[in-house]
């Protein structure tokens, strides 16, 4: 049987808030196909919780999550980190580059964690920065880059180990429309081969570019919209 690359089965997350229990995600089940899948919904609908569970940042109260065939729900924190390193890339809303590293070093960082030799790391990081159009910014620190440029570096970093899954959480949320458009195009281009791109957004225009849209409301998956 083929291993699930990104799959959720009855994924449920309950938080305790004071005396009450809040159900942030209710029985989410979905097997992500290759290509771009947008997850949309209003604030508090469970988008972030879903991404936390799919990426193994958090553990579900109930249900199962598989990433590159690994049962995240059954793994310890360090093992989940190992799975993320090898199979997932992340692009966050607020860029989250390491401030003391240059653009090139930021892109090379996941490869450092994996133990890729220095020369190979630098070569690949250079190629990735060229791909996102930032060859001329290699030695710049994040504070010297614009928001759009930082987000492009983040995309290059997410692609460093050629992941099977690319998670993007509101990747254009903090960018002006021109920079946002460029970042979005870049992300969409990454949906190649078996790779899954999960795009969490509340911007309908961004979601409209995905091949399918999952709509969440009050923690439940209420609609799956396949685009022609």
């Amino acid at each position, binding site marked *: 049987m083929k291993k699930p690359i990104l799959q959720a089965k009855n994924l449920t997350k309950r938080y305790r808030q004071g005396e009450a229990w809040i159900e942030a995600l209710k029985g989410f089940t979905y097997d992500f196909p290759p290509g771009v899948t947008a997850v949309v919904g209003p604030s508090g609908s469970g988008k972030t919780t879903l991404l936390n569970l799919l990426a193994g940042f*958090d553990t579900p109260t109930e249900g199962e999550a598989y990433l590159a065939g690994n049962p995240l729900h059954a793994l310890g924190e360090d093992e989940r*980190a190992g799975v*993320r390193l090898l199979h997932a890339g992340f692009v966050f809303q607020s860029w*989250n580059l390491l401030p003391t590293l240059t653009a090139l070093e930021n892109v090379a*960082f996941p490869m*450092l*964690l994996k133990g890729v030799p220095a020369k190979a790391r630098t070569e690949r990081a250079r190629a990735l920065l060229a791909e996102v159009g930032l060859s001329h910014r290699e030695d710049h620190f994040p504070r010297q880059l614009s928001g759009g440029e930082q987000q492009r570096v983040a995309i290059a970093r997410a692609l460093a180990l050629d992941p099977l899954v690319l998670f993007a959480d509101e990747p254009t949320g903090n960018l002006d429309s021109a920079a946002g458009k460029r970042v979005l195009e870049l992300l969409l281009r990454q949906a190649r081969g078996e790779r899954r791109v999960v795009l969490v957004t509340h911007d309908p225009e961004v979601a409209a570019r995905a091949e399918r849209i999952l709509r969440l409301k009050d923690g439940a998956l209420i609609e799956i919209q396949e685009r022609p």
Partner: protein
Amino acid sequence: METLLLIVRNLKARPVRSLLTLLGILVATASMVLFLSFGEGLRKALSAEMTKFGPQIRVVAEGTGTFGVPNPELGPEVLKTLKAHADELGIARLFPAAVMMKGSGFDPATTFLFYGLPEGITPKDLAPAAKVVAGRLDPHPDGAVVGKQKAEQSRLTLGKTLRLSRKIAIPIVGIVDAGSGFANSFIFVPMQAVQKALNTTNYSVILVYVKEGFAADEVAEKIEARVPGVDAQSTTEAVKYAERAIRIGDVIRFGISLIALIVGGLLVANTVMMSVYERIREFGVMRAIGARRGFIFRLVLFEALLLALSGGALGVGVGIAGSQVVNLYTTHAVGLALSAVTPRLVLFAMLVAVTLGLVAGVIPARVASRISVIEALGRV
């Protein structure tokens, strides 16, 4: 290598704080090195002194401290007995001396130790390496030969007169470099002058050269058994005695410097902990990307270690410089370099610095490695 780069970049990102922490450890380590260098210096000076001192045994009245100035309590019969049994005791040669101290005893410049030597005995018999600097070597019949150190310290020159008592005044006839710190602080005079000034015919000390093939310790024991009421102190015994005293001093000095070290350790812990709290998001990003706990633990621990090690190394450097300044003073004051930074002291200081870094870094490293990704990135 890149991990080191990350650490250095982080420390450089907060230069004032890193520098202040470094200074804290520097001061702590330097003070420890300096404190402990006295013990090392004393050990070195002492063993050097002992090799420069000719006689291997000094016979003094019972109860005289190993390094004390002996009172003139040995009667002529003691000398007679020792001479009579010299062969059987293993004594090659021996001579008496009368010693008198004048002055405060606290300030070397105003303290004068008159060492009365009998006829036919010169400072060379006490310190074989002794050389004349000015005038002559032999204080007899009625002169004083001043140790080089003493001469410089108290500005004594040839022709000046030294007063042993109201009635006895002796002109300086020679300045001698005895080659040893102790003997260079003596003023050698004819023994009779000291005895007259002290109003006695007794001796303070009888100095003994041991026959070849005899052990000084055993000869000393035999002397004590043969002559009642005396202490026969061999140089090896004196070294052992001093070593014990120095070791006790070491423990006390280390105890004092430990306070500075603990403060230094707390500084490192505080700096690294603050840095961890400021970088929670950064660590969250690393964890999200796939860094394992061990990577972040090492990152933070090495940061503490690097701070402690560089502070320690600089501290050792400052300690060495401080030790040289101390030696400048003590060489001038007592003729001995009392402070020494030996390789084993450097090693010990660096070991203490590493331990400091490790202990100070463990808690912040643990905190950093256990940061939850969703809390760090505000994804709750």
